[in-house]
Each structure stands twice: as C-alpha cells, then as structure tokens.
C-alpha cells in the first residue's frame, strides 16, 4: 500500500442490525497524508457513520455488519479496538461536555497522554506546549465545569492535540459555537494542517472552513457521489448540490454561480471572500439605496428595559438588558456564548424573574405574571428538541397542549395533521418522538410549539446542526406564519447568514447588556460591536464592505445573493 495513503476504503459498506438497508455501501475512497477532507451530505446520508468507522467506533462499539474493507494507517479497522485506534487517530465530537475524562483542565489534557503511557517529563512538556499553543494558561488549573462554552471546546481540542494524532476526525464540532470561537477552531485546524496532520471533517459551517479544505467528498444515501477539489466540485456541481441535496455551499461560490446565470462569463471560480473580491471588483454596480420595507406595526410584543438578574450563586447574568420586538417581525437575538441571551429568553416566558427592571410581553408584566400564564401566549423551542418531548407518539405529542385546552377530537386531529404536513412530518403520527432523525425531531419540536398559535415564538438555535434544506424549510415556514398570521418570532442564533436573510431587526448582547439594536445590515457595518460580541459578518456583507472600500458604492442594504446580482451593471 502506498504509504502516502492513510485512509483507504475499498467497496466498503456498513449495515446496522436495527435497519433493513445498508447505511453505507460500496464506498471507495483514498485519503492522502496531510489532506484536509470535508465530508458533506444531507442528514442521514451516512457521513458521520463513515467518520466513526475511521477510528473503529463502528463496529467496535456500535455493532454492524461490514462489507469490503477500510484500512486506516495500514490497520484494518474491522479487527481493531477504538482505544487502539485512539493512539493515532484523534476525534472531536459535538458536545464538549461529554468529552472530558477528568475534572480540571490540566488533568484532562494529561488523560490521553497517560493512556499513551508517556513518562512524566514528556507529559509535562507536551502539556506545556499544548497549553501555550491554545492560549489556555489562565484556565489551566480550573475545573471543567467553571469554563465558558468556548473554553470548553478549546480544552477538548487541546486534549486531543497533545496526543499528537496522525489523523484528526471532526464531527461537526462548531455546531453551537459563536463566530469568534469558530474562528479559533479554524486557526487550530489550520495549524494542524501546516503540521501535516490528516483531517477529515463533517462540518455544516462550510464558509468558515473552506479555505483549509483540500478535498470535498459529497455523500448521498450511503454512497460517495462526488469527490474532488472544492473549486472543481462547487464550480461544476454547486447548483445541483444546493438544489438537489439541499446542502450549504460556500456563499461566494453560490454568488458566482448566480452571476454566471445572468452573464455568461466563466472565469476564476471563487470560494472565499478574498477570492470573490478579485472577481467582483471588475464590475460596476447600480447606485441607489436598497430600502427594506420596515415592519408596519409599531405595536411591541416585547418591551423590556434595564433588566437585572442574579443567579442564586451570585452570577450577575443580566446587567441592564433591553429588548424591543415589534409585532409581526422576525427579530434575531445575537451574542457570544454566555452573553445572557438564554437568560433573557427565560425572563420572557416567566421562568426567571428579574431582580430589577421592567418588562412587558404580550401585554403582560413579566415581573408579576407567572410562567403558567405567560406560556399560554409565548412559546419557546429549546436547543435540544428531546428536552421538550413528553409523550410516546408524535400524534400525542402534538395533541398534548390542545388536550389541556379542552379542544374537541375532530379539531385536534385536523390541526395536528395540517401542521405535520406543513413541516414535512406527515405520516409519522404513530412513531415515537425519540426514534425520529435529528432534523425531524427539530421540526417536531417546532410543530409542537406552533400548534397553540403563540403570539410570540422564541427559537433557541433553530438551525443547530441542520443542512440548508431543513433550515430553509423551517425558516420559510416561520416567515409565512409571520406574514399570514401576524405572529412574532424571536430567534437566538449564531448563524449570520440566516440573520441577514431572515431577520428584520437584531439585538446584540454582550456581558449581560444589550449593546446594539437595529437592522442587521447596519450591524454588519459596525466592526467594534461585532468584535465585542464575538460576531462576524456573513461572507456577502464582508464582500460588499470590501467592494465599497474600492469605491463601488453598493448600497449596504442588500441582504441576499439575488439583491447583489441584481445590482451588477
């Protein structure tokens, strides 16, 4: 075997005992040493399973029938144990919380080194190097539960990197991270690439990582359908990947593809903003302001002023939070991990009561109204859908709230069927909620909350780990509800592409205080606020800012690729 090939799949297939169809079949794949490979595909296509085969989690821990062959670093994974593979192959998962083996940062970094049976001097020197590389000096002695979300993720990476793996497998580690922390992870992967580590990643944040990616492998229905350099793949197949598979592709590539539809000029195909700047600086743009129609109603659904809140342990979580949400709008609540967004949301549904300040939600005083009353008109979809499931079938789950409202059976059945089919869940009425796929669970948790027609719906990270198709399905659904029924949506999110496209207004929190409220397009021009709140511009906004620095005079009001393409002269 060519020593340069570190992962080799040969007609490789996987079938789990619980399913009647193979999850992976006839996979042929060769990954070279030092390559950064991005595995993409719609939910359920088997990309994560393929990743988990590369360090023998499948079939060593999750039993499965294997066909063909997969060898990693010359070892046939079928014959190996996870812990044995772990000596050379590092893996980072989504939830940092369940990846700590020890109670403090230093001991956790040491854990893997102890497993490699290194001597103390070697361990100490590796810990030193890793802690310095990751900038963890200040928290080295801290207990893991005292860390912020971003710090936790960095410690998880530090613990793996200290082991100096030859291959690094990443299973969507940035799903719930704010843009600044995502960028920190980008820097780590970049360093690893420079050191010749082979990286295979499943990652929904394509824009953030595309610069590092040497190779894209697209999967669908258990097979690899496309395999090549990102430029080649997205140039030739970008539209199809987006349209048919419903995947995020780099926004700049999407822009180029749309532009080519309008003017038939094939040239250099951009992936990043920097590359796109070269391409789009050649054009001139129509002048004129892009004016958005401001929300009509002036009536406020949420009107919160100067909220202060202390947790029982003394943490000062809200230090003067303000929030105004107009009726019939989609408003985004942004901010770093731990900036107080979730705490503020819990005040809006009456679960937490402010220490001081005032707030009116749907005409009710949040200080005096109990959660029992507020939740009749305000709903929240929590981050983890499973937290909100109570019943054993999808139908009962949906009908639960209607039953408590004493609705009659006929109405219940009609409402449930209607909503389920609107969210693409028709026919799943009798399934157990826990048995649904991730995307289906997410949509069910939304449907369950929408069935009461709340005046205000709060969404906590609605796009968490979703592909483009599911994200759009859900967000379009909300936009329709807002337009047709005059409902109001407040969404907490880290996804800036979603913000600029769907939100009419944004509020930004930092350290428990609201530091900005206004339109997203204005926000993305304010560098100091973006930095303070760990945010970043979506690629398209960055491109516009960069083009305007060259004197192109593009209206900063543009929000979508269509807007932009329409301006090209």
């Amino acid at each position, binding site marked *: 075997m060519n020593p340069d090939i570190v992962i080799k799949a040969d007609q490789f297939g996987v079938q789990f005992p619980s399913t009647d169809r193979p999850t992976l079949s006839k996979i042929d794949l060769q990954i070279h040493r030092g390559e950064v490979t991005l595995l993409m595909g719609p939910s359920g296509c088997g990309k994560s399973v393929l990743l988990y085969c590369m360090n023998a*989690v499948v079939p060593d*821990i999750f039993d499965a029938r294997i066909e063909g062959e997969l060898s990693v670093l010359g070892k046939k994974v079928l014959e190996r*144990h*996870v*812990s*044995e*593979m*772990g*000596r050379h*192959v*590092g*893996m980072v*998962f989504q*939830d940092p*919380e*369940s*990846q700590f*083996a*020890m*109670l*403090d940062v*230093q*001991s956790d970094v*040491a*854990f*893997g*080194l*102890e*497993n490699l*049976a*290194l*001597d*103390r001097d070697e*361990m100490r020197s590796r*810990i030193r190097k890793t802690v310095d590389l990751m900038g963890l000096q200040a928290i080295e002695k801290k*207990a*893991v*539960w005292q860390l912020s979300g971003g710090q936790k993720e960095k410690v998880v990476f530090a613990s*793996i990197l200290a*082991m100096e793996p030859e291959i690094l497998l990443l299973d969507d580690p940035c799903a719930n991270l704010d843009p600044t922390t995502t960028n920190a992870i980008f820097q780590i992967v970049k360093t690893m690439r420079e050191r010749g580590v082979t990286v295979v990643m499943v990652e929904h944040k394509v824009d953030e990582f595309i610069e590092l990616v040497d190779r894209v492998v697209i999967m669908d229905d258990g097979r690899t359908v496309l395999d090549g350099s990102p430029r080649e793949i997205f140039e030739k197949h970008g539209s199809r990947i987006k349209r048919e598979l419903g995947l995020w592709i780099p926004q700049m590539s999407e822009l180029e593809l749309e532009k080519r539809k309008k003017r038939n000029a094939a040239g250099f195909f951009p992936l990043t903003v920097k590359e796109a700047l070269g391409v789009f600086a050649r054009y001139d743009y129509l002048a004129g302001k892009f004016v958005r129609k401001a929300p009509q109603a002036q009536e406020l659904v949420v009107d919160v002023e100067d909220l202060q809140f202390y947790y029982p*342990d003394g943490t000062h979580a809200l230090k003067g939070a303000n929030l105004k949400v107009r009726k019939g709008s989609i408003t985004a609540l942004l901010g770093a991990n731990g900036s107080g967004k979730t705490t503020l949301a819990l005040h809006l*549904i009456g*679960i937490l009561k402010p220490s001081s300040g005032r707030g009116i939600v749907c005409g009710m005083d949040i200080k005096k109204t109990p*959660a*029992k009353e507020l*939740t*009749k008109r305000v709903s*929240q979809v*929590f981050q*983890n859908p*499973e*937290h*909100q*499931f*109570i019943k054993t079938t999808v139908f009962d789950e949906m009908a*639960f*709230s209607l039953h*408590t409202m004493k609705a009659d059976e006929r109405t219940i059945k009609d409402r449930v069927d209607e909503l389920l089919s609107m969210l693409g869940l028709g026919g799943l009425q009798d399934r157990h909620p*826990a048995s649904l796929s991730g995307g289906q669970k997410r949509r069910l948790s939304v449907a369950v*909350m929408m069935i009461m027609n709340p005046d205000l719906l709060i969404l906590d990270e609605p796009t968490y780990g979703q592909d483009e198709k599911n994200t759009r399905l859900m967000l379009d659904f909300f936009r329709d509800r807002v337009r047709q029924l005059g409902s109001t949506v407040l969404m907490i999110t880290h996804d800036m592409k979603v913000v600029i496209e769907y939100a009419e207004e944004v509020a930004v929190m930092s350290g428990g205080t609201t530091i900005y409220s206004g339109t997203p397009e204005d926000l993305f021009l304010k560098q100091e606020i973006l930095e303070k709140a760990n945010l970043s511009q979506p690629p398209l906004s960055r491109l516009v800012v960069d083009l305007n620095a060259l004197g192109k005079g593009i209206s900063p009001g543009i929000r979508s690729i269509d807007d932009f393409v329409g301006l090209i002269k």
Partner: protein
Amino acid sequence: MSFVKMQFVPGRSFVHRSDPILKLIWLVFVSFFVFVLSDPVYMLLVLLYVSAIFVVSRTSFRQAAGMFSLLALLLVIVLAFQVLTNQGRGQVVLELGLGLKVTTAGLYAGILLTSRFATLLMASMVYIFTTDPMDLAVAASHVGVPDRLAFSFILALRFLPMMTEEGTVVRHAQIVRGLTREKGLRGFLDRYAGYVLPLLLVGIRRAVNMGIAMDCRAFSSGKRTFLREFRWSNSGKILLLATVIYFAVILYVDATQGHLLKVQIEHWSW
C-alpha cells in the same frame, strides 16, 4: 451549583497531605472502632479526637454544615428519640409530665448513639473534603484496582452536575409545554413522566458518549502512566499510627477500668 459544595477543597493541611489509601484505611478503621465502644464517655473522647482532625484539616464549618445540615437534623432526632424512649433502669433525671421522663440510661444511650453518628459524619467529611478524587483514582490504580473501575468514580462526579444542569433545562422546557397547567394526580404523573423520558434519553446518550470519547483517547489501550504521582505518605502513616495508639489507650482503659459511668445501658442494637 449546590453539588459542587460537597466536593474536594484543595489545601495544604496535614490531612490533605495524607495519601488517599492510608486515609481510606483510617476512615474504615474509625468507622469500625465506633461500634466497638459502648460507653458514652469513651465515645465522646473519640468524637473529640475526630473533631480535632476536622479542625486540623481546615475544613470550613460552613461548607460542612451546608452539606450535612439534613444529617445534623437527623442527629438531633436520634438524640431526642433515645432520650425520651430509652428509659432503662437508670435514675430519673427529669420529669417531663405526660409519663415522659429523662433517665440517666436514656441520656447516656442518646449521647452514645449521637456521638457515634457524629463521629462517622465528621470522619467522612474530612475524607471527602481533603481527598482529590483524581488522586484517589491514581491511588486505586496503584494498588491494583482496574482502571475502568478507578475512573468510574470520576465519571460519576462529572455526570452528576451535568445531569443536574440538564434537569433544570428539562424543567424549563416542560414549563413552556404547559405541563404545570394540569392539576391533580394526572397532572402530577404527567409532570414526572415528562421529566423521566427526556432525562433518560439524554442521560443514556451522554453516558455512552462519555465512554466513547474516553476510548477514542486510547483509554485502556494497554499499560498506562499517571501524571500525578502516588506515594505512600508519611502524614498518612502518622495519622493512622496516632489513631491506632489513641484508640488502643481507650480500649485499654475501658478493659481495665470498666465503664467510667457505672450505669447499665440497655443496648440498642442497629
């Protein structure tokens, strides 16, 4: 988070410097010894001794009280119950009326049992507050406990605060679903069923993921080393030796002098 309060507090005291194994032997020794004694005065001497070690270990009383306030209440109940029900053949000290009287026998039995409990609690607190669980894992592995078992203790310590947090989120998530609106037994049952399902789902997934993540980091892939050193500690030896001598003296006095208080105590076996 209240859970964190019942954990190890770093320090440099004599007791902190004792290694986890000798300290564990000390704890087991004290726990057995309190059942050997049947005289409240000797028992109080043992309690005094363990209290002295508690003070030497610089364990904060406030923290200990926070953790054991419920158990302390239990102690008071045990004392009251013994004093009031164990009438024995002792002298009557106090007439309370309604047929209730305090006798010397009841008083002594109450003091014996209460100080026995208190000694056990004190000694356990000293152990918990002065022993780093990670050192305990290293020590356990050193004396031949399999790694998986030694580390399961640490995992449990990680798992608890995680599930506490998870429980809070689930409660919030379910308030939003309107679970609190239903009254009566049905509403009560629904509420609990509502907790159990998601906590179980998430708990099992978390536990599995924790195990996988550890294995992915080459856990139990062969011989393992430790960053932390395990050494039999001199302070541990001194602690154990001093305790043995002190207890031996008490036993000797007990055997030669008999009970200091010439009172027949009806034994309450438990």
